[in-house]
């Protein structure tokens, strides 16, 4: 048990290689994430940010270190991948409902909550549509609603908007903040976009490559709710400039 939503202690990851030297993907990562916090991880490609997220999500095992979850080892998590991974034979409603089916949680109350989430994400009209009928942005909304459907307190997002055009991305960022403030989730968000990280986060974790480690953690002190005014504010530019300098 931990007072934090997640606490990483000395996480390290090494990829063994028979012919070359071992690759140190992550080295001594220590991070405390408070409940309800929105935290972004940025860094150059190959810095291990996705690897770190996969370790937090129990998809990979770390070579060293421990992770404490607020709810213990059986922590429920939602994961949003870069690709929406919707099941192509299920419509929007069924895809979003899928975790409830798998976890045997299809109570009338949860179904009602799911419909509210679909409404919040602007998907109500598209409930019966199949994934192939949706745009990339729409698919990713469904994917986010799916990750929220079973009410896991911790959300992990691995460059969810990385494949979308800039306008759609800006729009979805605002939608995500709206959903986040309504649902009170803890969100760990991996991205390679500095502006996206500044716009969304309470704190931005900057990582450096080879070996992947935390270079600095920057708190973003900008008022919420954030919108277009946030992007136009001088502080936004300052933060972006500072982070760009850190990544180099």
């Amino acid at each position, binding site marked *: 048990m931990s007072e934090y939503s997640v606490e990483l202690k000395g996480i390290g990851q090494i990829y063994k290689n028979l012919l070359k030297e071992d690759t140190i993907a992550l080295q001594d990562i220590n991070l405390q994430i408070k409940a309800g916090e929105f935290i972004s991880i940025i860094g150059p490609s190959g810095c291990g940010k996705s690897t770190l997220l996969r370790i937090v999500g129990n998809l990979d095992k770390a070579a060293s270190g421990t992770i404490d979850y607020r709810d213990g080892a059986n922590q429920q998590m939602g994961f949003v991948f870069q690709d929406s991974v919707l099941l192509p034979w299920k419509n929007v409603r069924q895809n979003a409902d899928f975790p409830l089916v798998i*976890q045997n949680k299809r109570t009338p109350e949860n179904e009602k909550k799911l419909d509210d989430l679909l409404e919040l994400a602007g998907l109500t009209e598209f409930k019966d549509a199949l994934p192939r009928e949706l745009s990339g942005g729409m698919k990713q909304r469904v994917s986010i609603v799916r990750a929220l459907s079973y009410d896991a307190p911790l959300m992990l997002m691995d460059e969810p908007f990385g494949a979308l055009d800039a306008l759609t991305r800006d729009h979805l960022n605002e939608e995500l903040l709206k959903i986040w403030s309504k649902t009170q989730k803890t969100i760990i968000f991996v991205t390679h976009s500095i502006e996206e990280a500044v716009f969304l986060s309470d704190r931005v974790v900057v990582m450096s490559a080879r070996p992947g480690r935390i270079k600095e953690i920057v708190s973003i002190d900008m008022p919420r709710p954030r919108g277009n005014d946030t992007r136009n504010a001088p502080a936004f530019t300052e933060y972006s400039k500072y982070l760009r300098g850190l990544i180099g």
Partner: protein
Amino acid sequence: MKKNRKLRKALAGIAEYALSIGTFLLIWWIYVAIKMPPTYILPAPTDVWKSLVKLFASGEVYPHLWTTTYEVILGFLIGALIGVALGYLFSKVRFLHDMFMPYLIFMQTAPKIALVPLFIVWFGIGLVSKVVLIISMVLFPVQAGMMLGLDSIPADVGNLMKVLKATKWQIFSRVEMQYSLPALFSGLKVGIVQAVIGAIVAEWMSGKQGLGYILTYASSTYNTSMLLAGIVVTILLGIFTYEVINVLEQRLLNWHTSQQA
């Protein structure tokens, strides 16, 4: 409106079919009328039609048709089931794949006709040897299709199921099976055609039952119009069983791009 267009499209398809078959039959008929070959070499299409009508009118074809259909269905179902199971096992347990795949390829490349005498020695001239031959022909394409289907599932689907803490059975029944269906069905379509061929070949070789037996009987008595009529029945059986699989595919895969006309 939409329904109307669909109907017109279907009718146009049937018309094209009829025209093509009609032209073929006409050329055949003209050739026989002009050249007048002996009937044991090439009878006129009208003679074949008469034989066909006689086969059905006298009722003698039904037990044979039933025997072959029964063998095909039984062999296909067992073969497909084993194919799906093996495909799943081979795709999940790599060392089983590496150990047993050579045997399967070996079995597949051996000419099937050469195996029939062996099957007759082992399993007798009855139903079993025929069904075993059909199984051996259906198994491989189905297993290959299943493996292709499973191997082409995006990696993040597995990750999603892991995050959701799904059981192995849930992963198989709710995700893997559906994802494999498109590739599996192309295997099943090859399999059902192979099953009919297998049944006919096995019946040639042994026994006194089935459409294959009608063919050998007609051939050995130089009754060529009956032989051709028997071939027509065989083709009809092949088309019918193939269409059953086809309709099933359209039903189950209406979400897939291959089914968007």
